[in-house]
């Protein structure tokens, strides 16, 4: 960082103090005496900054804890409700073999994996939404903005309509094709964003993504139009999102595929905070802007692709949850990212529970529920807060 002018130094110190707030660096700040040679007008008194930092840290912990409690409650309650009424004693009855115990099978094969899938997909889409919004510096960005989901959907449509059945062990043709479609879309968008720009133009990215989205959507319509009527219902249903994964194998595979994205998400928050000020500002603060943008793009794309291949393109989670969380906890990504993951998981679990029981035994598509519940709630929150 250049130390040419006092203002820059002051900025640098402020950034350090900011970034130290939640990361356990406050002790160092507390112990250190004000450095000699700092401009006398620096408003940051280290002691007060440290106090503020620890207060903020406590608040962040409280926030995380309450969101985690919410998710935990959802995970515990959701498997208990459903179209069939279950006796918990029967579910946990070890004296009967699992193969005979229908209640246990409903609980452990149908409901629990479904709830876990909802948690995983909700968290993933919310995280991807936060990162996309920060990367594109656009509040309207969603995990689906850059065409990943429509590429994924196109792959799935082609598989449902044209591909013969192919059974690996846990991987089947539709999720695989959907992953392939997502990967194709990501690479095309990335190549387009690179070609005209030696760096990483988020404007080109956004325009290319939106156009590709429209293009893939048109191809999806074409595939549907050409497919038989009996297929149309199923392809349409796939597009509304479905969390009924019937077992843990798909969940395990999705989790493994998600790991790199999750690692990236854990590493990103500070850089995203800096990026929120604009690429140039972030650059002057020593953030490797290009690398951060690439990482954010590929991590959120991977997360979106995996989530969509597991459960279909469930809309609204990726846009509403980040905004909701920001309205509740502020804009600091170090809080927003984990809180969005926790809240996104809880939100989708709740929506899926509603989808399962509201007109049981018939199910509602969960994508419809997320929008129907989420939109009014979000609007209420929006007008409630000044």
């Amino acid at each position, binding site marked *: 960082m250049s130390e040419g002018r006092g203002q820059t130094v002051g900025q640098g110190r402020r950034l350090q103090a900011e970034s130290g707030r939640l990361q356990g660096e406050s002790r160092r700040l507390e112990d250190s005496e004000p450095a000699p040679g700092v401009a006398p007008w620096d408003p940051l008194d280290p002691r007060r900054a440290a106090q503020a930092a620890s207060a903020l840290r406590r608040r962040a912990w409280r926030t995380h804890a309450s969101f985690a409690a919410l998710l935990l409650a959802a995970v515990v309650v959701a498997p208990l409700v*459903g*179209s*069939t009424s279950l006796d918990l004693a029967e579910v946990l009855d070890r004296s009967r073999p699992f*193969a*005979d*115990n*229908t209640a246990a*099978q*409903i609980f452990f*094969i*149908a*409901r629990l994996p*479904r709830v876990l899938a909802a948690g995983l997909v909700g968290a993933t889409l919310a995280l991807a939404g936060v990162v996309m919004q920060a990367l594109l510096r656009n509040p309207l960005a969603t995990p689906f903005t850059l065409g990943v989901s429509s590429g994924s959907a196109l792959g799935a449509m082609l*598989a*449902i309509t044209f*591909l*013969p*059945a*192919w*059974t*690996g062990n846990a991987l*089947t*043709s*539709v999720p695989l094709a959907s992953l392939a479609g997502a990967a194709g879309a990501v690479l095309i968008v990335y190549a387009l964003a690179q070609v005209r720009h030696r760096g990483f133009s988020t404007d080109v990215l956004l325009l290319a993504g939106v156009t590709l989205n429209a293009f893939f959507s048109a191809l999806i319509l074409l595939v549907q*139009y050409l497919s*038989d*009527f*009996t*297929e149309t*219902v*199923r392809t349409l*249903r*796939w597009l509304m999102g*479905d969390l*009924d*994964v*019937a*077992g843990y194998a798909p969940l395990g595979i999705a989790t493994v595929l998600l790991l790199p994205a999750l690692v990236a998400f854990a590493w990103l928050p500070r850089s995203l905070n800096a990026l929120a000020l604009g690429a140039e500002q972030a650059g002057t603060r020593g953030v490797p802007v290009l690398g951060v943008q690439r990482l954010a793009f590929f991590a959120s794309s991977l997360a979106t692709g995996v989530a969509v291949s597991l459960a279909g393109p469930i809309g609204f989670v990726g846009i509403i949850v980040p905004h909701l969380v920001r309205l509740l906890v502020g804009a600091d990504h170090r809080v927003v990212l984990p809180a969005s993951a926790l809240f996104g998981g809880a939100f989708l679990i709740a929506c899926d529970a509603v989808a*399962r029981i509201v007109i049981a*035994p*018939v*199910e509602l598509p969960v994508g419809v529920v997320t929008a129907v519940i989420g939109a009014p709630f979000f609007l209420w929150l929006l007008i409630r807060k000044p």
Partner: protein
Amino acid sequence: MACALALLVACSPREQAPAPTEVKGPRVVSLVPSVTEMLFAVGAGPQVVGVSSFDKFPADVASRPRVGALLDPDVERILALKPDLVVTYGSQSALRAQLERAGIAIFEYRHGGIGETLETLEAIGVRTGHTEEGRAAAGVLRAQLVGIRQRVEGAPRPRTVLVFGREPGAVRNVWASGGKGFLHELLDVAGADNVFADVDRENVQASSELLLARAPEVIVELRAEARAPEATSPWAVLPSIPAVRGNRIHVLQGDQFVVPGPRLGQAAEALARVLHPEAFR
């Protein structure tokens, strides 16, 4: 300019051989595969001058001009075939308005149960000048169904789920017959109880929870088109279903299971044969 010309040439309607002119009785265009089958069954086949793009049966439809289907009826081609009667699906109101303006009579059809199929067989006979044949064809179908019902009468009725679509290789996006419509009634004729009989809809999306809870003793999967067999049965993920444990999972292939027409008798018999093999020895 050359490009535009090429486009024009490419777009000009393919002139099909003119439809046979020596047709006796009203000329009919059918946009509904099941009614096309009925037309041929009542002896109005020679009068059928145009069929939908989904028609496959009987083999004669291959020689008829295609005029689109439910969502994309080609009004120009329909008019060019100079039909006296057009069979439309119930929801094609825009097409009906256009045909009415052109002064062409309409036979409106909607899928329903077996009763509607029998009624439609007779009605389409009347409208095409084959009243007797229509009545006879309905009689034949009715007799087939009664015969099958009697054949499996008294045998225990297995609780069955009739699956007509799911994701290849997985028990996901499973669609089954609800307690309404011709598939449900076929199952009844073939001597089985539908596990979704209480659901007042034609289709049910059967989640894994529903499938486990309803515990069908037999699973019958219907496929309109041939598909490569799956290496391992995906149903094994739901092991407590009696049909899975007893290995009573049957796949029936053929479009008679999705087209409620005169072949419903065959469809019912195919179902009865897998549900009650002992009755057909």
